[in-house]
């Protein structure tokens, strides 16, 4: 049974693509067959984060318009088995993406035995964002501990309850998960950043994971390797925990408490 999972946020720049790349890679490492689709038509970036930008030949729109088969367009990840990337088109024609086209691609992925289809949503609440969530069974809403992204996350949660096909046909609702990204426990303890508890109280959605603010994320994107492959990094480990939770495991949240400094470090450290 294929699960379609949308990664969305409303606000741009909160880490949707980073999260899509990490979660899809983690699921594939766990033995699932995974396709990750970039829905950001005109502003393709998932290919860069996944490190496959030089291997893009055909894209999502080519498949929808019948210029290429899905098999031709899917890029197989070199390092991780069972992981396939479907890049967005760089066309400026936003209407190229259609409900029927998306359905056709997702149906074909289901027939091909994919366990997960990850839809990397564009920012905003326009057509691309709607289509990314339309066929979703589950949703990961990414937010930062910051007012505008929390507000936008709330808007997306409202849309997720009413816009997807599941809501239209009266099926069970899209399962919602919250992922807090760029969390800085030391700034929370000084009272200058919203805490996990603050955000959960406002949004009231089950927490899938908390990713700490980390230098590893930029380094990973520089190199074109999903950060979850950096096994030693805090962000990589936090994403691995989130993937485990998605698969039903119980994992305590890590990297959510301020690191305790010794007296020496507090006297002479930064």
């Amino acid at each position, binding site marked *: 049974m294929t699960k379609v999972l949308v990664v969305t946020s409303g606000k741009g720049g909160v880490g949707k693509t980073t999260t899509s790349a990490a979660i899809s890679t983690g699921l594939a490492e766990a033995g699932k067959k995974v396709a990750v689709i970039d829905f950001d038509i005109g502003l393709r970036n998932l290919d860069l984060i996944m490190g496959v930008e030089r291997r893009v030949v055909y894209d999502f729109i080519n498949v929808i318009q019948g210029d290429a088969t899905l098999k031709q367009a899917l890029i197989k990840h070199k390092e991780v088995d069972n992981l396939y990337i479907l890049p967005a088109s760089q066309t400026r024609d936003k209407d190229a993406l259609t409900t029927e086209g998306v359905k056709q691609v997702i149906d074909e992925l289901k027939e091909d035995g994919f366990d997960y289809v990850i839809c990397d949503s564009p920012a905003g609440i326009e057509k691309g964002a709607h289509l990314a969530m339309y066929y979703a069974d589950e949703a990961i809403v990414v937010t930062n501990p*910051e007012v505008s992204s929390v507000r936008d996350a709330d808007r997306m949660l409202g849309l997720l309850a009413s816009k997807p096909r599941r809501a239209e046909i009266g099926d069970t609702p899209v399962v919602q998960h919250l992922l807090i990204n760029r969390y800085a426990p030391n700034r*929370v303890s000084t009272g200058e950043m919203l805490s996990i508890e603050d955000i959960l109280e*406002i949004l009231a959605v089950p927490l899938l994971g908390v990713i700490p603010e980390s230098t590893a994320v930029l380094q990973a994107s520089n190199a074109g390797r999903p950060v979850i492959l950096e096994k030693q990094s805090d962000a990589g480990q936090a994403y691995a925990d989130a993937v485990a939770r998605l698969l039903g495991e119980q994992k305590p949240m890590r990297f959510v408490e301020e690191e305790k400094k010794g007296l020496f470090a507090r006297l002479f450290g930064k």
Partner: protein
Amino acid sequence: MGLLNVFHHQRKPSSSAKIAKERLQIVIAHERQHGRGLDYLPLLKKDLLEVVQRYVKVSDDAITMRIEKSEGMEILELNITLPERSESKSSE
């Protein structure tokens, strides 16, 4: 610097986060109310007005409606102003 930080750390947190939380709670509560109301409120208002107009001659703007939320309860407040001498439309 280091020495000062030891004391700085003990200080009561400057809670801009607290302000952020309060502002968010207010704006989100407002937006959720609107988001839900917008869907059906205008239609409900139109239907209700039609029913009332079957019995009483009231103008189209004689009806006001709003949703109020308090303590986990939502109240739909409906206000219809009847004309001074309401003429019954129904036959005897």
